[in-house]
């Protein structure tokens, strides 16, 4: 939607082309997240080097790369969990200023799913989902519960609403974490290696939920090693190494004919 009056952005300078995706609706051309000349250091370690990346509204972008390549750092910059020292990040057109109030406002529109789930262990599944609805959006209890039930059904876990996170399997916990983020009706979802700490047999139930979301047109920026997911759901695959974006391509090109030697080496190891 372009209902919030954001002007259309000129996206020409960005390496990620606005893609034509395959849903029934025409693609939304508003840019959900846009990093320009982004640089970040951890002390003397140069973690992100001149990153330029645009995530158009309605697109699904998968970031992959070896560990330490900066991919998690990049998406953590996109909702202000990490600070950066050079360049800019715009969320829905608004530049991140580091101002606390602005960040809080922007974070309402940016859902995030973590590798370690990060559910609140002292709260039930329902309370995990309704906390921000009530405290941030000021919904009434019954309204918040209604929204939470809707999204718990969407991740196929409504019957667990009154359990505590520790009573659930890893896959169930991660699906609750996805529902918790969806409750806020975000304009974009960030996934930071959502399946990396799951037992193998639970990866699929989480990926299925993510593929459903992608099919519904959710804007997604996803750090993952799940190449099957990238193939099936992504518009663009971004390959990072040593803090740089090495290559950006459509999944078809990325897997069949990557242009960079470094990408080929990585894929050889991943797709063995």
């Amino acid at each position: 939607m372009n209902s919030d009056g954001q002007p259309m952005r000129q996206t020409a300078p960005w390496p990620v082309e606005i893609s034509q995706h395959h849903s029934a609706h025409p693609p939304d051309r508003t840019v959900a997240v846009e990093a320009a000349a982004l640089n970040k250091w951890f002390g003397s370690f140069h973690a992100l080097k001149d990153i330029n990346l645009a995530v158009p509204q309605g697109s699904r972008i998968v970031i992959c790369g070896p560990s330490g390549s900066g991919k998690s750092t990049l998406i953590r910059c996109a909702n202000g969990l990490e600070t950066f020292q050079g360049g800019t990040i715009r969320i829905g057109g608004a530049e991140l200023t580091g101002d606390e109030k602005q960040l809080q406002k922007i974070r309402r529109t940016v859902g995030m799913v973590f590798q370690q789930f990060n559910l609140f262990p002292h709260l039930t599944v329902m309370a995990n989902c309704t906390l921000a609805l009530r405290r941030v959006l000021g919904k009434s209890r019954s309204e918040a519960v209604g929204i939470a039930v809707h999204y718990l059904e969407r991740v196929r876990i409504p019957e667990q609403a009154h359990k505590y996170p520790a009573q659930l399997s890893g896959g169930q916990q991660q699906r609750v974490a996805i529902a918790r983020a969806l409750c806020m009706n975000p304009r974009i979802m960030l996934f930071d290696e959502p399946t990396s700490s799951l037992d193998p047999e639970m990866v699929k139930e989480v990926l299925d939920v993510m593929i459903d979301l992608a099919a519904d047109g959710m804007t997604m920026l996803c750090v993952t090693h799940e190449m099957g997911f990238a193939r099936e759901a992504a518009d663009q695959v971004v390959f990072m190494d040593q803090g740089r974006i090495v290559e950006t391509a459509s999944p078809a090109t990325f897997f069949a004919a990557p242009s960079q030697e470094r990408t080929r080496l990585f894929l050889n190891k991943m797709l063995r």
Partner: protein
Amino acid sequence: MNFDFAFAATTLPTILGVIGTTISVALLSCAGASILGFSFEIARRAGSLPAYLMRFTIDFIRSTPVLAWLYFLYFVLPHWGFTLPALVVGILGLSIYFSGYLAEVFKAGIDAIPKGQAEAAKALGLNRIDVVSFVLAPQMLRNVAAPVGNHFVSILKATPYLAAIAVPEMLGSALDIASNTYRYAEPLTVVGIVFLVLALTIAQGVRLLERKLHGPTNR
């Protein structure tokens, strides 16, 4: 000297007569030590200079005897114009002394919360106050409940120090009986048993609390 059970029984009502003082002093001191210890720990996180000062304060408190604190507050402060009632001195002294230990309890209780908890709360758009009050504080309280309970037992067992500044608590009343009757074994044995029963009961309570807090429903 024979142990006179009948005499021991007659000392019990006198000693139990001040059990209320002992328990209230221990509760108030535990509350005081918790507030003080928590404040130290929060201040310690405010920067490197506060961290250094608080580290020094906590080490200083933990390296001085509790009796020294009580005597200082009771006998030295009046020279500077601060005369406090013995009961207040007792609660204050125990609060200060145990705050050094409780600061460590709160440090551990806060450190045990994974970093991802605050991140997830912030990522949902919660403001700082809500992050602390709805996500971090409840988890910290759960983490510290059992250790604070154990320190409460220690504080309870330290209340006899207050006999030194004439606070009417259980050991003091046992000593009064002893000096009036020249019989030490019976009142001191009775006071020991009363403390034993109290401490064991509370320790059992703490154990149950711990099981409830860290049971299957709660990580």
